[in-house]
């Protein structure tokens, strides 16, 4: 049923962004290595990956601030390149770094940006008032940037990205360094935008964020796309429904695998923990109780498991 709806959706919607064998090199370093993907109009598409996976390099090419090394990239039926002002005119960017203008106040920041998009003065005033309300910063309109908290700065970046009423919004790790309240507020706003029909492109290393927001994701690692799809289906395909973590030394592997292995669809050892993946964890948990293994966690499978399984659980540097 779900897949039928998805294929129906994809046949109705046409891609707003298409990448074919897209490459980005910095000197000899390959940041993005021949990736292909399509982003549909109106969906939220997530690029997931550890630091240095090539997520930011990819989205920078989409919003035309970084030239392609090779491959093709089409955004709204035009080829993306650094001098494409049309794409920039219709794209809103929420950058990873806080790039607000510290010499200006909150409303001046928006006012100056409205100019960059050729928005006439009166219209700009109206939009600025609306957007400050949208991100709950009305009371801060005349504050200077250094008087804002990190969460407020991030919200102002969202308001700034919306000034030109973009059809595509690129959010590059929009909640990095935020407390849970601020993070949830930003998620709500992003979902609200999506419900208005905006195409949302998200990069993140927080799996929860991807699960909360994205219709489809791709998992990137070392410049390549490892896997892509609907988050829930990816979890089901790669991991199953449930995960059992047993903290036990490697010396016990033989014993544990003999007892539990047949009840699980897969297993993995990382450091002091043995992971078992399964569709239905009940038989396995029964066995765990029989064996009396107190240091055990049983939980639903998450995108984080997929991510760690694909990119490896050891530290990536």
């Amino acid at each position, binding site marked *: 049923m779900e897949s039928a709806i998805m294929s129906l959706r994809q046949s109705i919607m046409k891609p707003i962004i298409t990448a074919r064998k897209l490459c980005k090199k*910095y000197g000899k370093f390959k940041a993005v290595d021949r990736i292909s993907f399509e982003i549909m109009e109106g969906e939220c598409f997530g690029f997931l990956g550890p630091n240095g996976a090539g997520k930011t390099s990819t989205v920078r090419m989409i*919003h035309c*601030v*970084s*030239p392609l090394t090779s491959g093709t990239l089409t955004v709204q039926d035009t080829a993306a390149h*650094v*001098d494409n*002002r049309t794409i*920039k*005119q219709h*794209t809103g*960017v929420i*950058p990873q*770094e*806080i*790039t*607000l*203008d*510290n*010499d*200006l106040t909150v409303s*001046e920041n928006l*006012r*100056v*940006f409205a*100019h*960059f*998009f*050729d928005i006439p003065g009166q219209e700009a005033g109206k939009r600025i008032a609306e957007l400050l309300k949208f991100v709950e910063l009305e009371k801060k309109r005349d504050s200077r940037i250094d008087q804002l908290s990190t969460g407020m700065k991030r919200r102002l970046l969202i308001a*700034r990205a919306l000034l*030109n009423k973009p059809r595509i919004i690129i959010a590059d790790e929009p909640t990095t360094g935020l407390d849970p309240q601020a993070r949830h507020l930003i998620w709500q706003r992003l979902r609200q935008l999506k419900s208005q029909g905006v195409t949302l492109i998200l990069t993140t290393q927080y799996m929860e964020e991807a699960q909360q927001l994205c219709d489809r994701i791709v998992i990137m690692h070392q410049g390549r796309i490892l896997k892509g799809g609907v988050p829930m289906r990816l979890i089901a395909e790669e991991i199953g429904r449930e995960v059992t973590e047993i903290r036990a030394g490697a010396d016990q592997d033989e014993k544990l695998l003999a007892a539990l292995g047949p009840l699980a669809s897969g297993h993995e050892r990382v450091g002091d923990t043995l992971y078992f993946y399964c569709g239905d964890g009940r038989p396995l948990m029964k066995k765990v109780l029989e064996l009396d293994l107190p240091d055990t966690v049983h939980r639903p499978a998450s995108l984080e498991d997929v991510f760690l399984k694909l990119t490896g659980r050891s530290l990536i540097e």
Partner: protein
Amino acid sequence: MNFSYRIVYVFWRNLVSYKRFVLTTFLASLIQPLFYLITFGIGMGAYIGYFGGKPYLYFLVPGVLITSVMMTASFECMYGTFVKMVHEKLYDSLIATPVSAEDAVAGDIAWGAFRGLVSGGLMMIVAIFMGILPVSPLSVVLLILLMVFVGILFSSLAMIVTSFAPNFDFFNYYSELVITPMLFFSGVFFPLDKFPGWMKTLSLFMPLTHAVAISRAIFLGEYTRGLIFNFLVIFVLEAAAFLIGVKLMKKRLIK
């Protein structure tokens, strides 16, 4: 090269931010040239007395005017631009809008020239209060145009330096090795004709020499045919520096 009318927006952004520190910059850009006027002009001028039939200050003021344009424009496009580019990442957010990298850099060069004009203009007002007047109202207009013209030159040269500056300290090389020698070898404080030949030749390679020559001619209303050469040197250098500066900055901004 991808220029558009959006250069004006970048200039306007600088103007909006300028209102917060306009007074401090007035002071900063006045102090050094004022010292020159007082120490050299009044102090030393008292010993020198008349100079080509006029008090020494008439020789000094047009040179100091142009020097203050050079200083302010250079520093704005070094320190000012560097802060905006590296510390505040302002260029990164600019180039994500329909403003191109070329627009952004050209807007900042125009801004540097404007800051130079403000400094030079303030000096001219101070000089007028001291009773040292340009020869006619036309001279005032021409001097203003010259200050903008020279401002663009030094802003563009500074932009080239900024395009490969790894940090603030790097700017010391440019100010110590280029700006300071120009100050003393370009005929700002005394005529160059007593210099040995090789020094005269060297001074011809300094853009300030030509700018000061034009400034002095306009201030005193004494035009000669040699000024065409001075003007051409600045014009050619300026066009080259502008294009190279924009190109190198774009290379640094877009990766």
